[in-house]
């Protein structure tokens, strides 16, 4: 099969699964069969994706296939199709791989859900996979936008999966509106882009930029708008607030959507439209700085979290900041590389955390501790994930983080570079803290044990999880090691930029320093955590309060938006409604009056025909 067929196959299988599960109510309500269908579809997609990548990496030119969707006067207004190049095919593998593993993992994780909810979960999942692949493969920005919105809807549905839980429902809404704010920017951006370039096709746009036929006037606004969309989706400061709350969803969802795939869509969009951003250096600079700020702030916030999923969530925000900084430095390739490796090990970390949560029925790290003995497998894979994230050589995150740091330096973003370097230390610190607190430190006093329990499930597995959960963990862990070893020792791709020789030792030292710091603080307690807290008190307070951003938003919401809404509401009720009421009353009266013409007497009908004829003749008498 040729790559286009394969890619479309990969795209349509989950869509088909979604339709089947969605339409056939008995299948959906049966639960497990729906799950198996969904898993079979996405696993086949994975196989197709791998084959697509093999075929695509052999071809120099990107493979593009498009069909007309909206016909227009001069050529199609919009097309649908697929664009296959190394980037999209790699991303396709990441999406399908993580999706497959997460779906298998969920079989066990959501074991206690009622069958109908189970079916619903897999229906959403299939829809998500389809839409995400739609974003990845999209050859034009319109299709990308449609799929982008679909992805947002799926995220909303899955965050709110336990919709009876008020926090979940609120978190879902928050995620929806925050990302929507960015999406409005994106929509404006692509509409403006069409007015400027007359096309949405990525390859054509790139061609225009290369040929110098694309006007640069106004391009800055467009790229800024595109960036706004990416900012919402990829949780960049200050639109990152939704992502930690999104942890209310089931943990496998967090692993798939809020770590590995959907949140990286913003980065992917920027990678895709890199050539446009290169035309507008100011916007690129903004991207870099905001990326750096996001990376640092989120890392700080991660240090003070006590909920294991929240730590991972802030860590994700932070890492997205890393990717964005690389993009902002002008080296999108480095950001994309980090996107791929991060997808693997962050999914691993989330799924590992899920296994822990599943066992102890709590998200709070106080309730955990000393779990290494009870669940050695989970601990091992979690440590592998941590080492990857900390950027330790021979693990997946090492090379990609080096590249990001090198790219930032090469791009001249010294300020963000310092932030990222600090962030690297903090990353290693908070991740090691999690590892020590959860797996090695002595269990907390039993009195602490009943924190608020978040997850479902009634019987805990006090031990390593069953095969369905452990299998995906091991696959991801092995992938993280293989990628790490391969990239560290065997594959020295010549980077697009030269990084100074001191970079690698410094970066590694930062990571190690973080690990050691955490070891001393949380394992041996050589350094008192309280002392640490008091030393960094101002930062700590700020971090605990999420830098008062939520409060600021709340203030804006309460005092400005609500007042505005009241004003609008008043106008709506008394002026617009008044006018509408008058008009609709006229409409209804008019309808009623006209209805009376319809007397039911055929003579009147004939009279209407004859009179109509006379009117026609009188009208046309000028030409007769």
């Amino acid at each position, binding site marked *: 099969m040729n790559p286009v067929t394969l890619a479309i196959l990969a795209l349509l299988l989950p869509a088909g699964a979604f339709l089947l599960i969605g339409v056939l109510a008995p299948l959906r309500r049966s639960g497990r069969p729906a799950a198996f269908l969904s898993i079979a579809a996405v696993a086949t997609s994975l196989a197709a994706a791998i084959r697509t990548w093999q075929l695509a990496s052999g071809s120099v030119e990107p493979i593009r296939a498009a069909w007309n969707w909206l016909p227009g006067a001069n050529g199609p207004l919009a097309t649908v199709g697929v664009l296959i190049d190394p980037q999209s095919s790699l991303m396709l593998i990441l999406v399908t791989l993580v999706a497959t593993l997460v779906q298998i993992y969920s079989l066990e994780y959501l074991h206690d859900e009622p069958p109908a909810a189970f079916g619903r979960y897999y229906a959403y999942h299939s829809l998500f996979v389809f839409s995400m692949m739609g974003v990845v493969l999209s050859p034009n920005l319109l299709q990308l936008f449609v799929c982008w919105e679909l992805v947002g809807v799926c995220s909303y549905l899955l965050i709110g999966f336990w919709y009876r839980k008020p926090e979940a429902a609120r978190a879902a809404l928050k995620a929806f509106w925050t990302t929507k704010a960015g999406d409005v920017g994106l929509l404006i951006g692509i509409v403006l882009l069409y007015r400027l370039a007359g096309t949405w096709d990525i390859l054509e746009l790139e061609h225009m930029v290369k040929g110098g036929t694309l006007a640069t006037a106004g391009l800055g606004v467009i790229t800024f708008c595109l960036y706004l969309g990416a900012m919402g989706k990829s949780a960049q400061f200050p639109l990152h607030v939704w992502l930690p709350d999104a942890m209310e969803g089931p943990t496998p969802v967090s692993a798939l959507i809020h770590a590995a795939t959907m949140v990286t869509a913003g980065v992917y969009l920027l990678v895709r439209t890199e050539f446009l951003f290169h035309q507008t250096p100011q916007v690129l600079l903004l991207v870099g700085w905001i990326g750096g700020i996001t990376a640092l702030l989120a890392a700080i916030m991660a240090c003070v979290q006590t909920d294991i999923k929240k730590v991972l969530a802030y860590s994700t925000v932070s890492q997205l900041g890393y990717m964005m900084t690389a993009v902002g430095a002008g080296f999108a390739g480095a950001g994309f590389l980090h996107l791929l490796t991060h997808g693997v090990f962050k999914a691993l970390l989330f799924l590992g955390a899920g296994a822990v949560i599943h066992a102890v029925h709590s998200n709070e790290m106080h309730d955990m501790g000393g779990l290494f003995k009870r669940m050695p497998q989970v601990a091992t894979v979690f440590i592998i994930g941590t080492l990857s994230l900390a950027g330790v050589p021979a693990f997946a995150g090492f090379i990609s983080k080096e590249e990001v740091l090198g790219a930032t330096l090469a791009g001249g973003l010294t300020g963000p570079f310092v932030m990222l370097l600090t962030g690297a230390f903090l990353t290693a610190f908070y991740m090691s803290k999690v590892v020590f607190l959860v797996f090695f430190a002595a269990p907390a006093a039993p009195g602490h044990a009943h924190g608020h329990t978040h997850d479902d499930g009634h019987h805990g597995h006090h031990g390593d999880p069953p095969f369905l959960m452990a299998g995906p963990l091991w696959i991801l862990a092995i992938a993280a090691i293989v990628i790490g070893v391969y990239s560290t020792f065997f594959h020295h791709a010549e980077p697009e930029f030269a990084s100074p020789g001191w970079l690698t030792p410094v970066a590694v030292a930062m990571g190690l320093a973080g690990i050691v710091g955490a070891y001393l603080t949380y394992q041996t307690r050589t350094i008192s955590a309280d002392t640490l807290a008091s030393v960094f008190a101002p930062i700590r307070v700020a971090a605990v309060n999420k830098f008062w951003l939520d409060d600021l938003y709340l203030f804006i919401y309460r005092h400005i938006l609500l007042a505005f809404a009241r004003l609008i509401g008043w106008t709506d009720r008394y002026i617009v409604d008044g006018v509408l009421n008058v008009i609709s009353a006229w409409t209804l009266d008019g309808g009623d009056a006209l209805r009376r013409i319809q007397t039911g007497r055929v003579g009147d009908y004939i*009279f209407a025909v004859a009179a109509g*004829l006379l009117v026609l*003749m*009188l009208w046309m008498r000028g030409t*007769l």
Partner: protein
Amino acid sequence: MNGEVLAFWVLAVGLVGSALNVVLSKNLFHSVLWLAAALVGTAGIFIALDAEFLGAVQVLLYAGGVITVVVFAIVVTERLVGERLSQTSRRILGGAVVAVGVLAMVLNVIRRSGIDMPRPEMTADITKWMGISLLTQFLLPFELLGVLLLAGLLAATYFARPEE
């Protein structure tokens, strides 16, 4: 004044008179008879226009067939209800305005058309030509007409037949 002109005027006056009676007569039965007169008058017009075959068709089919059917229908319905069918008119003013309006428009167009071409001599046997072309050029509408009559007949018997 030659024969054709005389015939035209006689037929025209007769036609208009009987047509008016068709639409104004109070008695439905009389209306039908006046219609028969109008149809026969039309046959005369056809003959004046050298369409003898059509004239014959008009008398046989229309004046013969149609009128018989109408009379039959009236008799059937009168027998059903057991009293004479009366027939009155309403919307007379509206009807008159519309009818006169349409007439005025059409007459105006006829007056302005300048269509009055000379009447060509009859060169061929029209009836023969009609017969031939019905089975050649107009074979398709001719066949369709058969289907149409069959469908109309089926429909008429279906509606008129008392419920089985």
